[in-house]
């Protein structure tokens, strides 16, 4: 949006740089002057919070890699070594482990904000799709990171998740051996997971750049979902949103710090403080909380569908639950973005949120009795929401009248 630039090189040096690599101009246009809707609420601060989370994970991760040993004989002890012997290691390791959970808490809020305010709709489809890929990569990165301490949950999580690939017909077993580097999860698996766990955050960082680029072409969506119509609808990103984001980051860091200093292990699982043992599965195996909804979907399919057996069916359902997000912009055809103006959508949306929380809860429960039945209903609603409810609502729902502009909505509220 270079048309909004007010940048004038202040001196000869800046002019010289600007003629060769206009990086100061770029920063001013995109980090400072960028016209941003003036009605963004605190749900919009999670983009900046997520950028901070990625930064925290990369910095603490690089430090941990200086002290960690990716070998089955030493990995478990080296993590304990970090926590007990390395200067400040107890806190740095806790920040990295808790940071993963906080990262996912923020990304779920960010995604559900997009779902409510229709941020995936035209012209922001590519922005949304890149976000889905970032989310999937985050899950892969977090999963591989959880394997590195080589505890019981690390080992059995790795076994269960890599086994997902064996559900693929015909080529499943060769792919499984290729991924593990053996017939079971073992040293080669740990080594490559360490390598990839170091690589993927930088791939995520590259995708974040594309995500922000795709954001800066149409500009931000906003709580009323009406596009910016004039410069009266916007304020410069700096200082208005740099300050608002900074404040939100500080608030976000309060629970973060509480976990780090007072309960660094509360989000983990006690079984992961038992070293990996390929002979014994923990009696109650659960993934990290942020993977639970998809884990529930995976195991809810315990019946064969036509020629698809239950195992492949579960894998298809879990993969489908993620991939369906990619086509969401074409499933919800309602021209109204914001859920604030969609009286019927709101009910189904909040039911979807509740349903997602129940899916999370069920993932941590044993696969027996009433839980199995409830899980099936929840999985059904998850897919119905995307495949049936949103397309049908697009046709039958009568939205409330939209404000003419962002300014009108803001001023109207102030006078009311």
């Amino acid at each position, binding site marked *: 949006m270079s048309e909004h630039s007010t940048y004038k090189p202040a001196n000869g040096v800046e002019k010289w740089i600007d003629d060769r690599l206009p990086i100061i101009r770029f920063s001013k246009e995109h980090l400072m002057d960028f016209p941003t809707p003036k009605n963004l609420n605190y749900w919009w601060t999670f983009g900046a919070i997520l950028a901070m989370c990625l930064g925290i994970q990369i910095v603490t991760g690089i430090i941990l890699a200086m002290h960690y040993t990716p070998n089955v004989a030493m990995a478990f002890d080296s993590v304990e070594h970090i926590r007990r012997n390395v200067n400040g290691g107890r806190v740095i390791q806790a920040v990295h482990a808790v940071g993963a959970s906080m990262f996912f808490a923020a990304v779920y809020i960010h995604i559900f904000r997009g779902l409510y305010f229709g941020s995936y709709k035209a012209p922001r489809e590519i922005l949304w799709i890149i976000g889905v890929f970032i989310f999937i990569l985050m899950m892969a990165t977090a999963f591989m990171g959880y394997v590195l301490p080589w505890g019981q949950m690390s080992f*059995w999580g790795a*076994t*269960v*998740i*890599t*086994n*997902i690939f064996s559900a693929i017909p015909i080529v499943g077993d060769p792919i499984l*051996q*290729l*991924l*593990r*580097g*053996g*017939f*079971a999860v*073992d040293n*080669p698996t740990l080594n*490559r997971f360490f390598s990839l766990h170091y690589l993927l955050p930088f791939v995520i960082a590259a995708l974040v750049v594309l995500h922000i680029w795709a954001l800066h072409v149409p500009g931000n969506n906003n709580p009323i979902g009406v596009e910016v119509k004039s410069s009266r609808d916007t304020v410069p990103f700096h200082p208005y949103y740099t300050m608002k984001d900074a404040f939100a980051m500080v608030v976000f860091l309060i629970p973060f710090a509480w976990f780090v200093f007072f309960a660094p292990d509360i989000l983990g699982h006690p079984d992961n403080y038992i070293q990996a043992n*390929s*002979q*014994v*599965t*923990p*009696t*109650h*195996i659960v993934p990290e909380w942020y993977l639970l909804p998809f884990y529930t979907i995976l*195991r809810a*399919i*315990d019946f*064969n569908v036509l020629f698809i*057996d*239950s*195992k*492949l069916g*579960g894998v298809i359902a879990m993969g489908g639950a993620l991939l369906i997000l990619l086509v969401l912009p074409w499933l919800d055809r309602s021209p109204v973005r914001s859920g604030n103006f969609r009286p019927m959508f709101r009910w189904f949306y909040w039911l979807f949120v509740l349903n997602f929380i129940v899916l999370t809860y069920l993932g941590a429960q*044993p*696969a*027996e009795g009433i839980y*199995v039945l409830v899980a099936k209903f929840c999985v059904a609603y998850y897919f119905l929401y995307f495949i049936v409810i949103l397309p049908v609502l697009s046709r039958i729902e009568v939205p409330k009248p939209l404000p003419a502009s962002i300014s009108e909505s803001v001023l109207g509220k102030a006078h009311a």
Partner: protein
Amino acid sequence: MDGDHTLATHAEKPATRRDFLYVATGAVAAVGGAAVAWPLINQLNPDASTLALATIEFNLSGIEEGQSVTITWRGLPVFVRNRTQAEIDEAKAVPLSELKDPETDEERTKPGHEQWLVMIANCTHLGCVPVGESGDFDGWFCPCHGSHYDTAGRIRRGPAPLNLVVPPYEFLSDTLIQIG
């Protein structure tokens, strides 16, 4: 520019010697690229030290009737169970029509050694080690996702698609087996 004076398209002219060279060069480059990529992927496959563990021998004489042991073969846990007569009878009494992955008890054991059940101890769903002498069919129960196996290690209920895998093995004598 006037359309009549633009360069002729491929459709209007027969393929030239130059076209052929382009395609041939591109094809060699693609094959060359794949040839370079394959070792970069193949290094992920099980290495020589992993493959070297392919065959083991195991002495059965220390296992009492009704006792199970778990041994390691190729890094995988393997159940060796000395079944009781009641378990064998229970397995044989099951009609094949009740099975998700139909196999008779005889097909899962060696003739003359019916009390011995040798199976890879990873649930065929996602690879957890099932718990012995439990579940609704008196065999194994996988705590991860709730698969129940019977006294012949056959899947009876839950998400697992197949019976517990019987590895290739043979009896070298009445008390010695070779797995792999």
